[in-house]
């Protein structure tokens, strides 16, 4: 779960990381009197908002209100700005970069830091980055922070200051079960280091341990939201073939084979390992609402039996008929029974993925 900047900063502050003293508004009237200069930051879950014009500065209350009314409601890369974070402008001497991420290769955390922070961080070459895996059982140790400080060219005072921040960010990362905890830029100000921005992604599987954390809804299409509410893995795509398969890998493979034959998927719907008729029915309800020209069902029966799934499909379309044809590829345990059940309802049922795909692409209007 990706958090908004203002939420991440609140959590960072709780773990002892200095962040600017800001506040959040949802409409321009909430702007407090401006003394000095302030920055108005659009709260969206997508990167590059600065370049998209989502971050502005103001020197007076009036100006701030005006800018706020421009920013609120603005569209940034498909995300609508609903909240602004208002902060005093910071005096930046230099921008650094600091993050912890779950590292798949080492199966440990990875600490990344750089003396060249900011928007261009991804193009900083590896030899200018400090990268070190941190074992989750031993945690962060003084020698790592020393090495980081040498690499970043920090003086003694700065080293002492960044030590607190690295421990704080480690605390955020581990205590809050983060996939990612990132400060970019970490800015050096006359008062020491401060997190000018904050990115925090909480591990979805760990949310049960953070019941008091405010939930952030990602941006979904109405149909995707409906699917999610029913616990179905569903993504809307731009093609016209509605793909349903069981298992994420198999669903991806189905998309690939469709594409090889000139077809284009309009949905990615993974039934998972279930043959629960209720789930099958819900899947067909969802896909029935998608703007597609044909439904392509790809089932490999293993633990899930082909005939059970077929029965579920038949029940679903009997209750709520689809407006588009179905092509099915049925393979595995009780495959013949499954195909028979579908064929009785006039559904084309094939054994090989390629045969079925060709039929679906044909029905969808050809390659």
């Amino acid at each position, binding site marked *: 779960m990706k958090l908004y900047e203002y939420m991440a900063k609140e959590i960072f502050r709780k773990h002892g990381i200095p962040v600017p003293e800001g506040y959040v508004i949802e409409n321009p009237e909430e702007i407090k009197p401006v003394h000095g200069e302030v920055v108005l930051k659009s709260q969206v879950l997508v990167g590059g908002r600065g370049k998209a014009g989502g971050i502005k500065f103001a020197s007076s209350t009036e100006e701030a209100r005006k800018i706020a009314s421009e920013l609120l409601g603005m569209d940034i890369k498909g995300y609508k700005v609903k909240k602004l974070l208002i902060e005093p402008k910071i005096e930046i001497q230099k921008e650094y970069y600091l993050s912890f991420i779950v590292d798949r290769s080492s199966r*440990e955390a990875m600490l990344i830091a750089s003396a060249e922070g900011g928007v261009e961080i991804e193009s900083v070459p590896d030899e200018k980055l400090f990268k070190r895996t941190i074992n989750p059982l031993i945690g962060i140790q003084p020698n790592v922070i020393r090495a980081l400080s040498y690499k970043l060219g920090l003086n003694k005072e700065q080293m002492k200051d960044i030590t607190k921040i690295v421990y704080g960010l480690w605390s955020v990362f581990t205590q809050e079960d983060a996939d990612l905890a990132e400060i970019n830029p970490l800015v050096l100000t006359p008062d020491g280091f401060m997190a000018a921005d904050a990115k925090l992604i909480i591990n979805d599987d760990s949310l049960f341990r953070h019941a008091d954390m405010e939930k952030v809804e990602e941006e979904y299409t109405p149909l995707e939201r409906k699917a999610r509410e029913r616990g179905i893995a569903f993504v809307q795509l731009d093609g016209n073939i509605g793909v349903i398969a069981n298992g994420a890998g*198999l669903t991806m493979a189905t998309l690939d084979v469709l594409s090889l034959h000139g077809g284009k998927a309009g949905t990615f719907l993974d039934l998972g390992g279930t043959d629960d008729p209720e789930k099958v029915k819900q899947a067909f309800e969802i896909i029935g609402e998608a703007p597609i020209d044909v439904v392509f069902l790809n089932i490999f029966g293993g633990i899930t039996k082909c005939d059970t799934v077929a029965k579920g499909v038949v029940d679903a379309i009997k209750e709520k008929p689809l407006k588009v044809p179905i092509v099915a590829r049925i393979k595995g345990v009780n495959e013949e029974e499954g195909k028979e059940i579908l064929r009785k309802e006039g559904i084309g049922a094939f054994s090989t993925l390629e045969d079925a795909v060709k039929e679906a692409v044909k029905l969808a209007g050809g390659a």
Partner: protein
Amino acid sequence: MAILVDKNTKVLVQGITGHQGRYHTMAMKEFGTNVVAGVTPGKGGQKVEGVPVFNTVQEAVNETGANTSIVFVPAPFTMDAVLESIDAGIKLVVTITEHVPVHDAMKMISYAKMKGSRIIGPNCPGLASPGKAKVGILPNLIFKEGNVGVVSRSGTLTYEIVNSLTEAGIGQSTTVGIGGDPVIGSNFIEILDLFEKDPETEKIVMVGEIGGTAEEEAAEFIKEHVSKPVYAYIAGRTAPPGKRMGHAGAIVTRGRGTAESKIRALESAGVKVARIPTEIADMIKRD
């Protein structure tokens, strides 16, 4: 031979009294697996499918000599269950449970390494050595004893590929579903290494997916350490893009992680990469 599980495997089922535990205990026994014990705290003394249930793993190990465990307990309690098995001296812990918190996964994998145990998973279908033993939830009927080792990040897609091998008359030494989570106990490299060293395994099939750099790293490993022929399929050439993990994600991945990057890396390591899943069986037959 085969790798990791064979006729000497004595399986302990953690969470045996749950729906999944009970069902797969039966399925594993049907496969011919020697399931010797189950554990569910508070349910010691019961029997499930003829298998005695204990309160603790230590007790189960003491009484039955179990040497391999399969974990079906709910995600919030999975780490504790895995640690319990490791502490009881279980050397192979197959973790089926999905949605295990990633920090728990990192911790239990580090702990396993310290104690000399191996974890498969979490969020994996387990593994099967046809004719010997299955410790997992893979469907029994798709397998055939033989000399091809299969290692995969995916579930159903693996079943599909194994089934097509079997239909083509190509048997398997062991099929290992390593799991689809970002952090898993045994990765491609570790399983490839076991297959390379297993005299019974003659060819290796590797099924990957987009995301992460495990396939690219496996390709590096294959180039240097694997002499047996490797066939691969990578799913996700046309899949919707995954979640972006900040700048750090991009820094760690550095342009790798796409199907193209994976296929390129594997091909340059001499791996034959299939364009559709069932093509692997054809390729092996042809060779």
